[in-house]
């Protein structure tokens, strides 16, 4: 049976979220009330019959290690295969590789040990709930060297940085560019034979290249058969504070919520052990996404509460994202605010940001 191994390459992803990425990489940023960005990609892989997944991390990988642990919560704590977190720990003085190719070079044994003949590569910024099996079947069927997962968006600022795709009538890729008007977007998810990947890696290293996709795939569009598989389901790209806020808020619409969460299998994440959320007699909650373990006396409107948040009597939380274990005391008023974990807002404080520029409070602050 033909199978894929997974690679989540975070090496090229920048810390785009200001205060939210002071101490963690982008892939570890919490979203949608109980998840981290990487959960979507990792769950999709786990659901696609992928039994081994490697993660190339840059710096600030500690909260990612904490979150992922042994991989058990994604069913990836396997004796054979499983989850490999691979931080930058280079010790070979003869190593000439650069950029993300250093990661490939220093982890060749991951690919060599793996039993699968194909590799699915992804970043962490494409948020969707799907399986990659269809993409894989399509890849086998077309006989392509590389198949890119693509989708179509009404262009938003976050899509400027994405690679855009032009294809011919059989979906063979003819051009990859940053064309700002092309709505056909590459999701950074692609699949290829392991042997081809290793060949391209060696070639890039030998030529002092720095970026596997750009230098290995994009630059070789002439002599590689690159196809595009089009994905139509619900998805989003999160690569800035604005897109982060926008895409979180979008999930307060029942339709989007159902498309992302109810139509596929569950999105897997680290298991907490929180009781159901308690709504007290005075609570007034509307149009909000609420995780477990919260205790709510106050008013919550058009907002997202992560696990274990307390909103006391008379407090109002509006258009805001409140992360794990924050406490909002009596009489507080919050609007267009993002609170990182463990923030404590004392009585009668009022904080207000703009919709386009939410006010972000770093973790463990008391205000």
């Amino acid at each position, binding site marked *: 049976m033909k199978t894929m191994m997974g690679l989540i390459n975070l090496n090229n992803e920048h810390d785009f979220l200001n205060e939210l990425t002071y101490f963690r990489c982008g892939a570890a940023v919490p979203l949608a*009330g*109980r998840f981290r960005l990487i959960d979507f990609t990792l769950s999709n892989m786990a659901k696609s019959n992928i039994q081994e997944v490697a993660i190339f991390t840059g710096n600030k990988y500690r909260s990612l290690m904490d979150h992922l642990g042994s991989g058990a919560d994604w069913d990836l704590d396997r004796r054979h295969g499983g989850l490999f977190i691979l931080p930058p720990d280079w010790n070979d003085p003869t190593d000439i590789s650069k950029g993300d190719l250093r990661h490939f070079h220093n982890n060749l044994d991951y690919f060599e040990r793996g039993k699968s003949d194909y590799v699915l590569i992804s970043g962490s910024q494409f948020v969707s709930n799907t399986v990659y099996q269809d993409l894989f079947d399509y890849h086998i069927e077309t006989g392509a060297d590389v198949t890119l997962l693509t989708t179509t968006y009404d262009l938003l600022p976050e899509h400027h940085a994405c690679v855009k795709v032009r294809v011919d009538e059989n979906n063979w890729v003819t051009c990859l560019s940053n064309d700002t008007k092309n709505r056909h977007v590459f999701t950074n998810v692609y699949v290829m034979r392991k042997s081809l990947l290793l060949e391209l890696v060696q070639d890039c290293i030998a030529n002092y290249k720095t970026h596997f996709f750009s230098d290995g795939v994009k630059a070789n569009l002439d002599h590689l058969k690159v196809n595009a598989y089009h994905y139509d389901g619900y998805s989003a790209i999160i690569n800035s504070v604005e897109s982060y806020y926008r895409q979180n808020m979008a999930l307060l619409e029942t339709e989007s919520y159902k498309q992302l969460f109810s139509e596929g299998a569950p999105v897997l994440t680290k298991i907490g052990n929180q*009781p*159901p959320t*308690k*709504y*007290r007699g005075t609570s007034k909650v509307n149009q909000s996404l609420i995780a477990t373990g919260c205790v709510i006396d106050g008013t919550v409107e058009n907002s997202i509460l992560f696990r274990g948040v307390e909103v006391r009597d008379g407090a109002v939380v509006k258009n805001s994202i409140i992360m794990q274990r924050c406490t909002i005391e009596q009489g507080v008023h919050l609007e267009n605010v993002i609170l990182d974990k463990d923030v404590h807002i004392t009585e009668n404080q009022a904080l207000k940001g703009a919709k386009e520029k939410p006010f972000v409070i770093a973790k463990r602050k008391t205000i």
Partner: protein
Amino acid sequence: MKKECVTMLLAGGAGTRLGKLTKNLAKPAVPFGGRYRIIDFPLSNCLNSRMFTVGVVTQYSPLVLNKHVGVGKPWDLDRMNDGLTVLSPFTGFNGGNWYLGTADALTKNQAFIESYDPDYVLVLSGDHIYHMDYEKMLAQHKQNNADVTISVLEVPWKETSRFGILNTTDDMKIYEFEEKPTNAKSNLASMGIYIFNWKLLKEYLEMDRNSTDSDHDFGKNILPALLHDGHKLYAYPFKGYWKDVGTVESYWEAHMDLLEEDLELFLHNNEWRTYSHDSNFAPQLIEANADVHQSLINNGCIVGGKLDRSILFEDVHVAENSYVKQSIIHPGVRIGAHVHLERVIVQENVVIPDNTTYIAQADEEPIVISPDFFEQATSS
């Protein structure tokens, strides 16, 4: 490998008084408290009390229970040298043997207990809701130099006739058992939680095994025999919330208790957490026209209607313009629009059609809506 204390959790009862709730489900596997199953409470107590050597005795419809318990991962009881072991009935060299009574469940699993060469055995049942530190009870047992320690609860005097009552001297030494006495001398009721010195218990199990007129039950046979023979039995007074959810009424009441101000920290107690499985549903979505008060809601719920003093397990949908009051809604239930429920328990995956009303009056037993409820309603 020797362990000081082995815990035997008796989870084999059929729980017939729970009616439809236990039709295809062992009582300890019945859902409770918005995300748990009843057995999560004693198992979490084991973890929190550092009782890491646990045998779970099952017999009745155990598929869901065994799947839930597994090797004890959610309770950190998947351990190398001890941890959790499920003990199902089995055939041995001398043929097959079902468990005949609570004591018999230990007799038949003597080999399991002996493999840890314990000094003490803690016996629990799998169908009570409470937080208890068994380590403290064991410390008390050792300090008293007792042969048996029985955990007891002070019940209201007018209710003593519903319980097994223990009469004790001032130092909590037991001198008499009275089963459901009409004129009780004490209001200390047994909670069905025992610590035995294993060597002594083994002797009595051996005698009991060979006794033809025994019910092989701790309460009826073993404990009276030990008391009669002059062994030292002590009561261990328990303070705190404890509920036997043995009937539909008490099951419903226990849920309403969770919504009371003085009990709401029971589940939200960070010092004494209750652990269970998690099925990774997304956070609950409370829609624009929802109105939620005095309720507990779990992940995956989508609430469009009005909730009052109700408990929603995971993945429940309540459509707009519906009203759910004092009700318990098990996982996966879909409640249509313009539905009115009061004092109702809805079982897993039931679909309640639009425009339906089910109300149990305050003096009636809560209505249980099971998967075959609508079929039966149609056919009758």
